Each structure stands twice: as C-alpha cells, then as structure tokens.
C-alpha cells in the first residue's frame, strides 16, 4: 500500500474522513474485485500526485460493512469525493485522466 493512502474501517471513518479539512477521495473496493485491482495503480498515482491537496483513503467493503450500507455501495469500484463531511462526487471506475479532471474541479 502506498504511503499516501490510508485504509479506513467503520470505526476510523469519523477521524480519517469526516474530521479532515482536505477533500477526501474514497475508493470503495474489495480484494476479490478484478476491476478494483486494475484501478489500484491509478489510485496510488493520484494519491501521490495530489498529496497535500487531497487525502486518499481505501475502504474494503467486506471489512467495513456499516460504511458500505451507509453509502449504499452496490457495485465496486465506487469512488466518492468528500468535502466538509458531504459526498460531492460519486463515480464508478475512471481513467486517470477523468479522475484528475474531477479532482482539479474541486481543488482549483
């Protein structure tokens, strides 16, 4: 796991995401999900590229079942951008081009 990515579970969501001042990109994933694994290099690159501007976290939906329910995650990978405790974007698998464009829109 990249040093720029944090694993989040049900009991750490509040401190790692909701209490964070930066926008937070959340990658809902699971180890058995091939498209999620395919997205991993992109997520790692993006975390490095936006370090200090966007916090990147990964949530394993098999481990964090309460978060999966809370955010109605029914397919993975699901990516959400959080700011000030609210979901401001929600997308499925994305190219690095589209993901960076989305982050640029929200980070200026």
């Amino acid at each position, binding site marked *: 796991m990249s040093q720029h990515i944090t694993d989040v579970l049900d009991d750490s969501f509040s401190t790692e995401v909701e209490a964070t001042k930066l926008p937070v990109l959340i990658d809902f994933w699971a180890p058995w999900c*091939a*498209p999620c*694994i*395919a*997205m991993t*290099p*992109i997520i*790692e*690159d993006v975390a*490095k*590229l936006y370090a200090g501007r966007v916090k990147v976290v990964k949530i394993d939906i098999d481990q964090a079942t309460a978060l999966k*329910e809370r955010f*109605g995650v*029914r*397919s993975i990978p699901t990516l959400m951008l959080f700011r000030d405790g609210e979901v401001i974007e929600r997308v499925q*698998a994305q*190219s*690095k*081009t*589209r993901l960076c*464009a989305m982050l640029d829109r929200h980070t200026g």
Partner: protein
Amino acid sequence: MTSPHTYSAYLGDIACKQRIVARLRSHADTQHLETKKMAWQAETGAGSPYGLALQSTDEALVVSTLGMPVAVARLQEAVFGGCRVIHWKDSRMAQVVTAASAVQLPLQWFESIAVGADLSTLPSRFAQALLRWLVGGEQAMLTELDAEVCALIASLCELHEGAASGVAVSDARWTATRQHAMQVTDAAGNSASQVVATFAEAIAWPDSEASSTLPSAVDSLANDLSALVRQSFFTPAEQALRDAAQQAIQRLGASAAKVTPDDFGKLPEVQAVSSPDWMQRERQALDGAMNTLSQVAQQWHALLIGCLPA
C-alpha cells in the same frame, strides 16, 4: 510514476533469459496459465505470465530480476488478459480461461525480448500501434468513426512518436491534449467513436505515467469493444430494451432504499429482457463477444511483440 531508469532486459544475462523461457515453456501447454494480473500460486504452480516468470507476485522483481519496466509487465498482462474465453456448464458461466490459440503467447513474448534491450519506450510505441489499429478501418465494430476522433488519434500518435524518439513533450501539451480528448469523447456521435476517444483520453500521458495509465486503458478498451460486439447481436429496438433495463438497474442501485438481487429481477424493464429465449441470445452474444475479443487481443499481442526493440 516512475523515475528515469536505465533498463537492460534480463539484466543483460543470456542465462537469465534461458531460465525464464524454460519456465514459460513448461507452463505453455498446461492449464497453469491465468489471465489475472501478477498472479502466482506456489501450491498449484498457476499464475499470470509475469507471475509464472518470476514465481512471485512481487512487481518490484520485474525491474530487479528481469530488467524491465513495471509498465511493460502490466501492459503485456493487460493485453494477454483479453485472450480469455468462457466455458459454460449447464447454462451457467463456469469459468473464464485462456483461449487455446493464445497459450503460447507469453512464451513467444519472453522469447522475443532481446537480452539487454531497453524497453522503456515500449509503452509509447505500443500506444501508437494500438491507436493506428483502432482507426485502421479493418475492424467491423469500429467503422464510421467521427472525423474529430480520427484527428485526435493522429495528433496523439504524433505526441507518442515524439516521446518514443526522445523529443521532449511538455506537461502543458499533454494536459491540453487530455482536455481536448475529453471534449471529443463527450461530443462523440456514436458508440464506436466514444470507445476510441475514451481510450485516447486515457493514454494521453507520457511514458513516465504509463505503468498506471496504459494497462488500465487497455483493460477498459477490451471491455468496451466487447460491449460493442454484444450490441451488434441485437436490433436497435432490442438494444433500446437492453439499455432501458440497464438504466432501471442503475436507478434502483443508486436509490437510498435497501435492495436485494430479487428486487432487480422484479423491475418491469428487467423482466422485459429476461425470457429464456432472450437469455439464450444474451449468452450467444457474450460468447461471440469474448471470442472476437480473444482474437483481437491476440492481434494486440502481435502488435506488442512488433514494438520490441531489436
């Protein structure tokens, strides 16, 4: 992202190549070859091409043991991943396996790489080759491409060609190309144009970024082409019914309500495309798409080998 690095395939050691090729040869005719990414299971001896070559899932060994960029390993496995076909059992999708005609490809790949070759510009060369393949007009599912899409491909080929031959391409130019490519994708007039433009925008990055951009773009392209082929099995009216079912599933999935798989099955739009006859046709369409894609991926593998430096 990777830092500048000098690569020498097989670390310049013929014995290293012989060892790797012997490993792949021993797996070529067995069921041990998988279309997963960087996979290796010591207990069964099964794995992906690079997993088998390294007998490990540690990507760092691609550089330290094979003298190749990680981007190249991911790219080869992404291309080889398209060579999968379905085996059916009692009308159920039993397993996805490598096409029989493709099992020798990983062996050919490792045999074709010259000892000491620098593969650092291979991603750019393959990107150009694949872009040209997409607009070459020989693929039935990729006809009637928008002129704007073809122009985008031509300019992107120029950029990758420059990068592969050592011409400095500024970050600003790559960024501008990506922004233009996204506009072209959003304005694409038909599915085929959208698929090609989507691929182009995803790979409008320099080689230093290729380890994350190009393999995932190849994966997505394979899926998008498969969907195009599946569409061709249905009339426009039938396609509209399929689209309506898909949209209804997405709407229900995105709703706040708790839903079960049965709830999706109860949607009228889904029931309209769930008769036994329809399901049989969906299965035929999926088989057709996977077989076409497998042939396409084998062509891509040949393109990839053709991009290797002498």
